[in-house]
């Protein structure tokens, strides 16, 4: 709308010979420069996809789809398969969600439904600071604090009580899927909390009042009325967290162990897509090696884009319906 009236304005001023004057006034120039920046961003994203695609062609041509299903990663003999990394990325992200979702949703219930607004705002402010902590610092704390703690306390308990499950069998060296999943869960919890809280707050007060008036307890009103109303948005926040977890690099690289293998045991070291790129890219030699890493980047890009798009859609529908 606005731009089309602008274009007619421009045509009119051209006809009247006023363009030079308007250019001198900076009006057209400002319009064109801002337009160029906006279009530039669209081109940049297109370029980004194009670069990833064209640079991964050698791998696509050599291995085809079997790249995604092969589990052999041996740069020395020129064999590249992505499966161990895809597996590691999925396992650590799911583990992170299993821990972070209950914790995050419960916290958002407290912040939206129970805490007085002022207090809730301060707590939310603090929790959002957690999201600002650089991931390399989570990695640092992961290596030196979390891993020793897991080794000393968590793993003995897990193997003693749940050791009959294959996921808790085998030797524990410290770096593992479990450590990576735990660090990730701390990293994504702030996203779940801040989005879910917004969504819960957007549920109309009348719904709570109606439930309470019918004799529901506070918890029943929250769990049976408010949460179902906000569920789409909460699921959106979970997808958002999932996208973060999938793409998270440094903290995972530092605690996952960087061993490309697929095992059921969470106590075993593994590898993730982002971690293998971070670890091997700078030293990768040979175009097939580099292009395989770039193809992994493309896979990661595709995964996060799809999940992000879904998350935004879900959050958008709830916040619209909620208000």
């Amino acid at each position, binding site marked *: *709308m*606005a*731009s089309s009236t*602008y274009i007619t304005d421009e045509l009119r001023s051209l006809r009247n010979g006023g363009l030079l004057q*308007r250019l001198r006034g*900076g*009006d057209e*120039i*400002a319009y064109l420069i*801002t*337009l*160029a*920046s906006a279009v530039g*961003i*669209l081109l940049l994203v297109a*370029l980004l996809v194009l*670069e*990833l695609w064209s640079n991964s062609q050698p791998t696509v041509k050599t291995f085809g789809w079997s790249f995604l299903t092969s589990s052999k990663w041996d740069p020395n003999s020129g064999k590249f398969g992505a499966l161990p990394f895809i597996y590691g990325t999925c396992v650590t992200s799911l583990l992170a969600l299993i821990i972070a979702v*209950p*914790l995050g949703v*419960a*916290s958002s*219930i*407290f912040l939206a439904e*129970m*805490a007085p607004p002022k207090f809730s705002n301060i*707590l939310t402010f*603090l*929790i959002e*600071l957690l999201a*600002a*902590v*650089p991931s*390399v*610092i989570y990695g*640092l704390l992961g290596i*030196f*604090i979390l891993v020793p703690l897991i080794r000393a306390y968590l793993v003995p308990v897990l193997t003693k009580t749940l050791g009959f499950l294959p996921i808790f069998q085998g030797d524990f060296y410290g770096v593992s899927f479990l450590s990576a999943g735990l660090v990730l869960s701390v990293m994504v919890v702030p996203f779940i*909390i801040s989005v879910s809280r917004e969504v819960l707050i957007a549920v109309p007060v009348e719904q709570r009042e109606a439930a309470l008036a019918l004799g529901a*307890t*506070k918890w*029943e009103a929250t769990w049976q009325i408010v949460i179902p109303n906000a569920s789409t948005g909460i699921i959106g926040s979970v997808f958002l967290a999932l996208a973060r977890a*999938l*793409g998270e*690099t*440094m903290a995972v690289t*530092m605690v996952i162990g960087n061993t490309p293998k697929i095992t059921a045991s969470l106590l075993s070291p593994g590898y993730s897509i*982002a971690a293998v*790129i*971070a670890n091997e*890219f*700078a030293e990768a030699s040979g175009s097939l090696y580099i292009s395989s890493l*770039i193809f992994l*980047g493309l896979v*990661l890009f595709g995964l*996060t*884009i799809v999940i*992000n*798009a879904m998350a*935004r859609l879900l959050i958008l529908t709830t916040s619209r319906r909620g208000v």
Partner: protein
Amino acid sequence: MMMEISARRRVTNAVMLSLSGICTLLVIGVLFFILGYLLWEGARSLNLDFFTKLPKPSGETGGGMANAIVGSGKVLLIATLIGVPIGFLAGVFLAEYSGKMFAFTLRYTVDLLNGVPSIVVGIVAYALVVRPMGHFSALAGGVALGIMMIPIAVRTTEEFLRSVPNSMREGAMALGATKAKTIFTVVVPAAISGLLSGMMLNLARVAGETAPLLFTALGNMFWSHGWLQPIATLPVMIYNYALAPDEDLHQQAWAAGFVLLALVLVINITARLIIARGAAGLRR
């Protein structure tokens, strides 16, 4: 009978509500643990040498990260020079000029860009800058972080410009100002504190980024001259030192982590307070 059910419900109510409170406490507890631990470890390892000396060759103790501190500054400067102007101008376009369809497309694209994992941005910067030039450089690191700054710069600018009341635009235009003059002398100045804080938040966010720098800026044990050499940065130093098998280097990593986190949190808190005060002012 009624009483019994009622008691069960009351207990469920109390238990579940306190559980949700406990979860919140747990999350906040993690934050304070991180802050506390870094403060403790970092302060123990921090000394003047950290800010003034170069890293020592491996095997020797002592030394500092002066080059990485300056390096982070240089890379962030390039990133700001790339990300902020492009993002700001595109944000102005979104808020002041754009038609609906284009705005939707651009906003969606920007959100997509925001969701791209940082390591992938690193790959793209490698393909665009490192490969053609044939070597790692501060410029490549700056390009990677600059791309990462664009989405937030766009959305911040759009949001804060939109919060400026239309009456101000109409007032300026009624006085005969052109549209550009209205935007840049009336609307932008009215939103300036929000814009600046938004950009600070943006900078704080990329200041801690490590992944995109691993194979763009790479790292350097010495001073990096100019903009086209590999350059040391604080986050990458933390990464390398944390994984090194040397207790002295671990201490340096803690010190660097402390400095980085302090920087990020101070910028973050300041910017948020300014924005919160601005919002309160508008409400009045």
